[in-house]
């Protein structure tokens, strides 16, 4: 038995706190002293977590961190969800980072590719959200976590408002394993509307000089929805939503699914589907869902994050959204992701590239993006045991025979065969398979959704039921069959396509009773953002960039 003391970590935390004691009054530190605080509590070699996902950013703390000198701030193992801000890139340029474990690098994807090429981006691994949160409890527990909250009281309790997102998933493992939690807050008040994080789990609070950065990531302007997207939406409603009686679901952020949301009160109503489909949602408070909610389609919506402008509307609909005792909206990213994994009939999303095996990716040689949450929702949860109608039907198609898994989640990829600028969506091989990209990822190509998990592919040409294909060759033929005039599609054999159509594996719009002539914008329940405001009874406050009146 070694005589090593069992509280080294705790003593080290106490030493760090005492180094910072002169800076704080209670737990409150003036924002002018932020750099001193970071220098006092962060040590070389630390695992440091910087809060920031695709919407919410601890941007003041990130900027303060990036302003430090690499002589004091070095050898850091950075763990975070999203590398989104120029300040995050600065940490790498200054050489502070020994290793980085992260999920996603959307807007900085180009900068990350450049850093990677110059050897300044030492990737541990690229994760999905739930993977990295899980690792915060296993082998990547932060020593210091820099987080963001809406409000704090003078005791250091935190209110997270609509954007709870991942804050609890960072704070809990950090606080309960003797790490240090530093929060930037928009406002310090005497009394909080509700307490989302108790002060017991918080070490320092800084009233930031400006409010945290929030992106209106889930707002889609109905004015930008095209007739082609409406056609695809009609095909999806007929061929999947109605066919499988999809009750619980997640929608991606694209215009394709926004079109579906806006067709429910019109086309969906006409098909008599209200009350039968689309009742339970795990999705952010999408403004384009307001017409469906107001028409009585939706029972509940749980969200991984908030959406700018939806605060008053969500507060007015506690029958639909999850709200706190103070009346305002509540979100939780890990729990939403968990729900998306285990509790949904269907995940439907879009992608930039789909290969002939049905694998999809958003990575290109010039842009290293990563994963986020889609892979956790767009996959088959092998640990699922509870049945639903849709799950059983998809299971029967995919796994016939004794002893096979009885059910299957519907994992749907909805893409136009070409992206803007005539770039084909369908490719023989993903850019993600490029050797230089695989080399940086320990030999594994960054695939967003695996073809083996996909049950259906929807394009403007029709639906391919990949789940019902019996061989990899058959799956490739089905993909080519709906890949239109892309090079992948032009290689199809008309005999194969006809036989797959015969068996119902490929369905064209006319097979589903969808008339392309009806696919136009007048079918949308809202044609512009102002219509959404009207549907909401004036409770939706669209951000200024979406206003044109």
């Amino acid at each position, binding site marked *: 038995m070694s005589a090593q003391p069992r509280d080294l970590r705790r003593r080290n935390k106490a030493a760090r706190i005492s180094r910072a004691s002169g800076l704080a009054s209670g737990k409150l530190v003036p924002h002018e002293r932020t750099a001193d605080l970071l220098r006092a509590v962060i040590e070389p070699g630390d695992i440091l977590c910087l809060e920031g996902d695709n919407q919410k950013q601890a941007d003041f703390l990130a900027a303060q961190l990036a302003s430090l000198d690499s002589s004091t701030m070095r050898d850091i193992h950075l763990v975070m969800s999203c590398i989104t801000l120029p300040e995050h890139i600065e940490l790498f340029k200054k050489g502070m980072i020994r290793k980085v474990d992260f999920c996603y690098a959307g807007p900085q994807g180009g900068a990350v590719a450049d850093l990677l090429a110059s050897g300044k981006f030492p990737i541990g691994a690229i994760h999905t959200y739930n993977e990295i949160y899980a690792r915060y409890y296993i082998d990547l527990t932060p020593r210091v976590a820099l987080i963001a909250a809406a409000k704090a009281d003078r005791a250091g309790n935190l209110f997270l408002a609509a954007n709870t997102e991942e804050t609890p998933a960072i704070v809990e493992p950090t606080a309960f394993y003797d790490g240090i939690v530093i929060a930037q807050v928009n406002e310090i008040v005497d009394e909080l509307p509700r307490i989302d994080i108790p002060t017991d789990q918080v070490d320092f609070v800084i009233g930031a000089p400006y409010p945290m950065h929030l992106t209106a990531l889930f707002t889609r302007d109905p004015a930008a929805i095209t007739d*082609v997207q409406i056609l695809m939406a009609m095909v999806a409603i007929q061929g999947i939503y109605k066919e499988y009686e999809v009750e619980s679901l997640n929608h991606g952020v694209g215009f394709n699914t926004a079109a579906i949301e806006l067709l429910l009160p019109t086309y969906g109503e006409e098909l008599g589907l209200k009350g039968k489909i689309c009742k339970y949602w795990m999705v952010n408070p999408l403004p384009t869902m307001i017409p469906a909610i107001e028409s009585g389609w939706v029972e509940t919506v749980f969200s991984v994050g908030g959406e700018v402008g939806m605060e008053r509307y969500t507060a007015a609909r506690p029958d639909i959204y999850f709200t706190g005792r103070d009346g305002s909206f509540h979100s939780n990213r890990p729990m939403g992701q968990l729900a998306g994994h285990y509790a949904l009939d269907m995940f439907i999303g879009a992608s930039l590239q789909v290969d002939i095996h049905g694998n999809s990716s958003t990575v290109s040689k010039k842009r290293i993006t990563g994963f986020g949450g889609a892979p956790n929702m767009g996959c088959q949860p092998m640990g699922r045991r509870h049945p639903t109608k849709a799950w059983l039907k998809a299971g029967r198609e995919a796994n016939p025979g004794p002893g096979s898994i009885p059910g299957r989640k519907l994992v749907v990829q909805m893409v136009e065969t070409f992206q*803007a600028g*005539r770039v084909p969506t369908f490719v023989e091989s993903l850019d993600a398979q490029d050797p230089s990209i695989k080399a940086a990822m320990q030999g594994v190509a960054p695939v967003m959704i695996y073809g083996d998990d996909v049950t259906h592919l929807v394009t403007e040409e029709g639906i391919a039921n990949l789940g019902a294909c019996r061989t990899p060759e058959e799956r490739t033929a089905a993909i080519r069959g709906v890949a239109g005039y892309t090079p992948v599609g032009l290689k199809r054999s008309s005999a194969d396509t006809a036989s797959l159509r015969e068996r119902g594996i490929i369905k064209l719009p006319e097979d589903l009773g969808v008339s392309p002539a009806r696919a136009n914008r007048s079918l949308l329940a809202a044609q512009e953002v102002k219509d959404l405001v009207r549907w909401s009874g004036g409770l939706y406050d669209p951000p200024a960039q979406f206003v044109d009146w």
Partner: protein
Amino acid sequence: MEKFQQSFPSKQVAWPASRKWALSGVVGSGNLEVLIEPSAAAPASVSYSVETSFPGYKDSWLAALGDFASHYAVGGTTITIHDQGASPIVITMRLRQALDLLTSVKP
């Protein structure tokens, strides 16, 4: 700018004699315009003339134009296209709209 011409066999079009032409679409990003006019020369084929600012997709163009010629009766016409990067589904939609305009009888 890429330019090409190609003829495909097609059943003869039927339209009111009062109509001399039809135009659909506009030249703009991701869009195209289609002008369809009678051509006495070959009643059993359609002659396409394409000008596009997105070069390199001729195979895909010809496949879409050929399918249109075989699915619809457009023989005896010339179809001229100005394109700014429209996807094949948009190309097909505009061709159909132009044909509908040409063959629809309005008071």
